[in-house]
Each structure stands twice: as C-alpha cells, then as structure tokens.
C-alpha cells in the first residue's frame, strides 16, 4: 500500500501534471475563465483520466506497439464523449461551454502522455492511484487558476459579485492573463517545492 500512496503523492505534488510535466495546459487555459466552467472541466478531466487509466492498464497486453496513438486517443475520447454527454444532461446551462470539451479532450496531452508513460507499463492498482493523484493535482490547479481569474478579471466568484466592476482587470480573462497567472503560480509552486525538499526542475 505504501508504494501506491507514494505514486499518489508524486502525481499530486512532486510530479504535478501542470507545473512539472507541462501537460494539459490547453484545457486549463481555455476553461479557467470562470469558476464554474473550471470546476466542470476539472471534474470531467478527473473522471476521464481515472477511467482511461483502468482501461489502458487493463488492456495493456493487447495493445500493439504500432497503434498506441490511435488506441489511446480512441479510449480517452470515447470516455470524454460519455462524460461530456452526462455533464450536459446534469448541467444543461453549461452545455455551451462543454461543446468544446471533446476536441480539447483529444488534444489534452494529459491522457495520451500519462497512458504512454505510466498506464501502459504498470498494473491497474498503481495506475489508478497515479490517475487519482494526477487528476486531483490538475483539479486543484484549475480551481485555483479559475477562481483567481474570475475574481481579478470579472470581480465575481461563482457568479456572485465580490469586487466592484470599476476595480477589475479585464486582462485576466484573456489568454494572456491566464498564462501570466499560471506562470506566477508555477514560480510559487517551484519555491514551495524546493523549500519542502523536492528538487526544482
């Protein structure tokens, strides 16, 4: 059980998918414009990554080496499609922003790279713990980024106004501001990581 816990913490913090592995930046920036869409995207990514890890590690002996890109894309896109339809049914108001989730799920390098690097080489239990760690790491990052962007850029949090409109900076809603926030958070993350003993990249 100890190794599974190690894998989980590694995925969550020391090997964080966004800040260390540079994965999944595209959906992170596209969906973090408001807290609600960030929450939906984070949860969808978490579930899709979890199910993908089960499928890929369970089927890893049957996937030929020469067709990995195709099979991994097919698995994760199929699960993303199912997640998307479910989310649209549960939250009809978010259907407009979810229409873009599927093309971006295809481009989400989180699934393909983690499948290639970890799930195709390990059993189900380590794969699932890695998926939970990486998914939770991605979720936390997208929640922090989206709440910062919404508060700074629009002055609201989950739709409730907390800062008057005159004091907002619309730049943070644009991709440039998103990149800036992710970059600054990444610097902070590296600082904390070196302080807690991990090696900075």
């Amino acid at each position: 059980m100890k190794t599974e816990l190690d894998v989980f913490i590694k995925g969550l913090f020391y090997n964080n998918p966004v800040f260390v592995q540079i994965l999944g930046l595209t959906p992170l920036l596209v969906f973090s414009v408001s807290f609600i869409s960030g929450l939906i995207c984070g949860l969808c990514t978490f579930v899709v990554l979890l199910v993908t890890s089960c499928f890929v590690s369970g089927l890893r002996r049957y996937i030929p080496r020469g067709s990995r890109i195709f099979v991994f894309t097919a698995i994760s896109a199929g699960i993303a499609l199912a997640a998307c339809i479910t989310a649209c049914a549960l939250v009809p108001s978010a259907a407009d922003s979810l229409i873009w989730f599927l093309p971006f799920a295809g481009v989400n390098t989180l699934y393909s790279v983690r499948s290639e690097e970890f799930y195709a080489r390990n059993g189900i239990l380590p794969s699932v713990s890695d998926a939970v760690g990486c998914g939770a790491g991605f979720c936390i990052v997208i929640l922090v980024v989206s709440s910062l962007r919404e508060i700074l850029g629009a002055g609201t949090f989950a739709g409730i106004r907390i800062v008057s409109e005159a004091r907002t900076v619309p730049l943070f809603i644009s991709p440039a501001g998103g990149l800036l926030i992710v970059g600054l958070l990444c610097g902070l993350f590296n600082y904390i990581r070196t302080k807690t003993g991990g090696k900075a990249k």
Partner: protein
Amino acid sequence: MKYVFPVLITLLAENYVFTRAIGLDGLLGTSADRKTSFRLSLITVFSSLISVICAYVADKYFLSRFGLGYVKYFIVLLVCSAVVQCVVNSMKRKYPGRYVKIGPYLPLAAVNGTAIGIMAQITTAGLLFWQTVLYAFLIGAGVTVASLILGVVLENVRYSDVPGAFRGLPITLVSAALLALLFMGFSGLDLPV
C-alpha cells in the same frame, strides 16, 4: 489586398497559440532548441493538413447524412488519429535516425495537429474544400510563427539572471504571456471595407 488581409488576420490577430492556447503544450515542452521546435511545427502543420482533409471528407460524404450532432466530432477524431498513426509509423520506418531525436515529442505534435484540423473543420463549417484546407494550413503556420518567436525570446532569457524559483517553465510561461499580450495588439486588424 483581398487575399493578404485574411492571411494576416489568421496568422497574427487570431493566432491559435495565443488566442486559444492550442498547441501550447508542445510549444512549451520543446521550445528549448530552435531547430527541433521548427521541425515539430512542420509535423504539426502536416498532421493538421491530413486531419482537416479527413475531417472534411468524412463530414461531407458520410457523417452529415446521419445527423449525429455531437458524436460526429468523436468519429472525426478517430479517423484523424488513425491516419496520423499510419504516417507516424511509416516515418519511423523510413527515418529511424531522425525519429530518435524528436521521437518523444512526435505523438504530441501529431495530436496537436489533429486538434487543429478538427477545430478548423468546425470553425469553417460550410466553406469550400480549398478554403478549409487553407485555413488549417494558416493556423499551422501561425503555430510555427509563435514557436519561432518564443524560441528566440527564450534563447535570450537563457543568458539573463532569472530568480531561482522562476527558472525553467515559469519564466517560459511569463514570456509567453507577454508575447500573447503583444499579439492582442493585432486584434484591431480587420478587413478594409
């Protein structure tokens, strides 16, 4: 001028890297070396062209007849990734030496290209075949432009005194943010009427 302005708008004002963050992963992971990142952008352009052609043909002649709606994108994604996989496999066999150097990033660039192709197909729904393909090519060219500029900026960053915690990815992200800010300046570009 009728043809120059749409090209300029797609390349600069609607640069996919900086306005929609598509292709950022591949860009940030590989922008260490200008030559490698240029080759990777070429692969992105190539696979986006393949994907857009697949997507157009599949959509026009097969999928639009069934009224699939949302599931359509899934099927297009499958077709594109299958074709890209074939191309990658044949490349691996033909240029084994070159594949080793850019090998790990190849699937990344290919997947990015696929997404660009699909996005182009969705965005330009209803346009003619050559217009769709040209649009996909211009998006790919925009990614190439962005990766070249970012590569040059990062080469200069390497010789400057960056605070310890900001070395590596953080300073890359902040430089990309400033570049995106710069590209926002082009957003006023519009067709002269």
